[in-house]
Structure formats: structure tokens, C-alpha cells
């Protein structure tokens, strides 16, 4: 007779840097069910947003997530601009896209390191984080801060790209291009690593669609879903990106899709820098935003980021609703976990690139099958 155990993990745990509580039901080594409790970093940002002015909110939104801070501010700024009927000048939009793609570089390299660490491949963790410092330097060079860059203003951006910075960025991304190629070879050829990723956590296209997966997780299962391509924002019409897809659906595919996206990012960064349109950096914004509601979507490094903003015509929003990509992807982890070995769970969790600070809004429970 087999015995079933519940293994509680968290909220303080050595694997991930953010608190969350998992309950893994195991039968021997095999996982038969998994539940998740989120909410340890729920801060009440959406409510807090209602007490702050539009401009103050820009900085609050940026701090929903410290990894993809730019896209949060971007989604918010674009939504508010749409409400006010203002369009950011072309140069500002190009710079927004530039920062967004640099951020994708930093976020994916960060994830590569964390995922490699979960696989027990610490050398790769150290290498990828060492190279990630290159992007951090570039972001600091542009904005003055390594993490919350505050590139956006309502109606434009805060800083310009000087010719000197352009040269530095081009140098930096060329170096990274080589490194990413190297990492791609590692994840595709290192036998030990492949043993942890190939055929693990397979998510079929139907499942991915049913569970509403977004971002690289969905694209690794062959779901063509990328806001940058579907509904281009910022300057993505002028500087389009190609969608990277894989049909495999396993962890290896998620590695490959993310790394190949980086080549796209690097290509687009070069294109933007070489064809930066000339214009003002900001457009004039009214202090009070006309009443109305708007949906604003952008592609964060982890997938689609969704903002719903309601204005009542005052200098503060009436309601801001944020749906972050990690939340959409949790379902895929809980659905693929049963049947795997306990040791695969950290990899599965890391596979969607979870970010707790942005998704702590709810509790996800999967019923026993």
C-alpha cells in the first residue's frame, strides 16, 4: 500500500527569493498533486493607486515588480495617454521600446541563471549573471539606476540616448549576442542539463490555450501569442519583432524560446539605435485625465501584461486593475506537476519564470484528481 505525504514548502525557502507556499502531495517520489498559496507579498497596490495622482502612480506601478519595472510603467503610461488622447512623440516611443528590449535581455538572462541554479547547474548561474551585469550597466548608463529605471513620463520619456551611449550599447549587445549563442549551445547540447529539461513538464498546445498561458511559456508550446506582434504598441510597428515559437512544449523548449528571443531583442535594439527618429521627448499632458476607461496591454518578459484603468476626470485614477503574466502561467505549473518526480518541481516552477511580487493577488488551488 502506498502512503501519501504532503510536503509543505515555504514561504521562506532556499530555492526562490520570494515567499510563496507550496503543498506538494507525493506518493513515494511521484507528485500526485500540487497546490499553491500566494499572497505573502500582497501589498494592496491597486487600492493604493486610487489615493495617488496619475504621476505618483507611475512610480508606484514601476514597483509592482522590480524585474520588469519598465513594462509596468509603460503599460500604465500608454493607458493614461490613450485616455487623455495624447500620443507620445516618435523618439519617445522608440526609446521606450529600446528600454523594454534591454529589460527583456536582463530579465531572460536573470531567469536563465535562476533556472540553471534550480537544475543544480550553478556554473551556468554564475556565468549568466556575470554577463547580465553588462545589461545592467547599459541600463544604468541610460537611466542612472540599475533596477527601477523610471524611463517613462506621462506623455513621453525622461532621457535621451546620446551618440556616446549609442556606441556603448551597441558594444554591449554585441558581446551579449556571442554569449547568448554560447548559452543556447549549452542548453541544447549539455547532456546532464538536457536530462533535466528534455521531455520534462510537457505542455501541449491545447492545454496551454485552455489554461490561458502567456508569453514564452505559451510560445514554447506553439501558441502564437505575443502582444508585440499582435497589437504593436510603442514603436513596434516601425521596428517589428519576429515571434519565436517552438512546438515541443517541454522545459527545453522554454529555454530555447527565451534565448532565441534575445537574438530578436538584440537585433531590434540595433535597429532602433541606428534609426532613432528625431523629435521631442515628451508631449504635453493635462493634469486631469478625462473620464473614461481603457485597456492597455504590453508584452512583459514573462508574457502579456494587462492594465485596465478607469478615470473619473480627476487627478487620480478611479480604478487600476493589473493582471500580470506570472499569474496567468501558474495554472500550467499545477497542471503539469502531477506525474513528475519531486525533484523536478523546482525546475517546473522556474520554467515559467515566476515572479511573486507581481502576482500576489489570489489563491490558486487545484482539486485532487
Amino acid at each position: 500500500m502506498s502512503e501519501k505525504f504532503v510536503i509543505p514548502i515555504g514561504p521562506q525557502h532556499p530555492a526562490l527569493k520570494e515567499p510563496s507556499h507550496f503543498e506538494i502531495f507525493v506518493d513515494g517520489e511521484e507528485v500526485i498533486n500540487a497546490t499553491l498559496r500566494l499572497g505573502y507579498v500582497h501589498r494592496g497596490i491597486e487600492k493604493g493607486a486610487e489615493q495617488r495622482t496619475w504621476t505618483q502612480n507611475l512610480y508606484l506601478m514601476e514597483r509592482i515588480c522590480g524585474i520588469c519595472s519598465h513594462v509596468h510603467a509603460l503599460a500604465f503610461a500608454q493607458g493614461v495617454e490613450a485616455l487623455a488622447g495624447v500620443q507620445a512623440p516618435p523618439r519617445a516611443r522608440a526609446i521606450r521600446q529600446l528600454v523594454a528590449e534591454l529589460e527583456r535581455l536582463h530579465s531572460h538572462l536573470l531567469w536563465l541563471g535562476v533556472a540553471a541554479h534550480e537544475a543544480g547547474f550553478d556554473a551556468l548561474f554564475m556565468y549568466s549573471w556575470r554577463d547580465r551585469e553588462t545589461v545592467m550597466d547599459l541600463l544604468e548608463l541610460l537611466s542612472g539606476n540599475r533596477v527601477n529605471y523610471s524611463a517613462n513620463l506621462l506623455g513621453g520619456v525622461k532621457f535621451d540616448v546620446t551618440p556616446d551611449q549609442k556606441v556603448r550599447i551597441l558594444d554591449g549587445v554585441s558581446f551579449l549576442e556571442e554569449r547568448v549563442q554560447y548559452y543556447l549551445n549549452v542548453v541544447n547540447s549539455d547532456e546532464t542539463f538536457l536530462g533535466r529539461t528534455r521531455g520534462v513538464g510537457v505542455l501541449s498546445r491545447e492545454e496551454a490555450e485552455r489554461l490561458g498561458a502567456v508569453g514564452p511559456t505559451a510560445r514554447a508550446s506553439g501558441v502564437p501569442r505575443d502582444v508585440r506582434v499582435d497589437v504593436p504598441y510603442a514603436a513596434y510597428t516601425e521596428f517589428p519583432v519576429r515571434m519565436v515559437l517552438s512546438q515541443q512544449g517541454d522545459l527545453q523548449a522554454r529555454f530555447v524560446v527565451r534565448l532565441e528571443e534575445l537574438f530578436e531583442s538584440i537585433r531590434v535594439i540595433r535597429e532602433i539605435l541606428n534609426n532613432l527618429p528625431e523629435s521631442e521627448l515628451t508631449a504635453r499632458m493635462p493634469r486631469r485625465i478625462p473620464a473614461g476607461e481603457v485597456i492597455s496591454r504590453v508584452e512583459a518578459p514573462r508574457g502579456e501584461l494587462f492594465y485596465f484603468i478607469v478615470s473619473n476626470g480627476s487627478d487620480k485614477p478611479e480604478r487600476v486593475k493589473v493582471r500580470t503574466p506570472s499569474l496567468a502561467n501558474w495554472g500550467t505549473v499545477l497542471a503539469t506537476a502531477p506525474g513528475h518526480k519531486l525533484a523536478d518541481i523546482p525546475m517546473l516552477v522556474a520554467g515559467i519564470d515566476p515572479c511573486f511580487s507581481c502576482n500576489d493577488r489570489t489563491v490558486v488551488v487545484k482539486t485532487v484528481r
Partner: protein
Amino acid sequence: MSDKDKGVGFLDKIRTWARVNSPWALHYNSGSCNGCDIEILATLTPRYDVERFGIKLQGSPRHADVLICTGPVTMQSRDRLRRIYEQMPEPKFVVVVGSCGISGGVFQGCYNVLGGIEKVIPVDMYIPGCPPKPEAIIFGIVQLLEALKTGRKPEAVAVIPEPQFENKA
């Protein structure tokens, strides 16, 4: 001074020596935006490499000398934070990284946020910034270690940063 006291003093010296040279740190995020956590992790990686000071980040509260806290304290994580602090063996030191761990920062006034870490557990060292740069985090921890060596409380240090941007890209 009796011989016995001498022995204790000697042991204390060894203990302080060991503590200063290999502090084990535990990291807990009680509601941060992740920015500070990532910067703490970055201090472990090759460019900053805090392990050269003997600092090691590890998983269990029971092995930790230093608790590194990030973020404001949310209602949900308050009890966990207190429990982690209580599980740590004496003597223990708490370092707060980031503006929101100091005062609640940008999240002040949000309904689920209690405020800074000091509302829940005593704090020995604050490292301001949103997020502080890895250099600042290392500087802060080294200050704490210096203070441990001499047995004095860490003093407030104002650091005027050098103009950056000289890093090679």
C-alpha cells in the same frame, strides 16, 4: 581576573573572530518588489562576489547569523518574519535593504502594508536605496562586520557616491 574569566574572554574572542569572518546570511522578502532581492542575489555573483568576505547566503534560519530583510512588512508575512527571527540562534543581526524596508517606502499607506521591518523585529543596520546598488549592500554589511569586531553599534555613515558610468560596457 580569575583563570576561568580569562578562558571565557578568550573563547569570546574566538567566537567574534569566527563570526566576523564567516557570517551566514538568510534572506527574507516580506513584501518587496523584488528589485532589492535581485540586487542581493547579484552580490553573490562573480562581479561582486561577497563570498570573499566569507558571507554565505543559505536557506535555514537555524544556521543564520544575519537576517537580510527586504520590503515593507505585509500583514500576511508579519508572523512569518517574526517566526524566522525567533528561530535564529543568538546572537543575531538584522540588516534591512531598501527604502521600503526602512519606512514602507513607496508602498506607504497601502492597506496591507504595516510599514518598515522595525515595526516587527529589531533592526541593526539600514541600507537605503531603491534598490541600493550591490556595492552599497556590500558596504553596509562590511560596516556591520566592522561594528561586530569592535563591539560597537554601527554608526550612520553618509556615503556620497562617486559619479558612476565608468564601468566598461
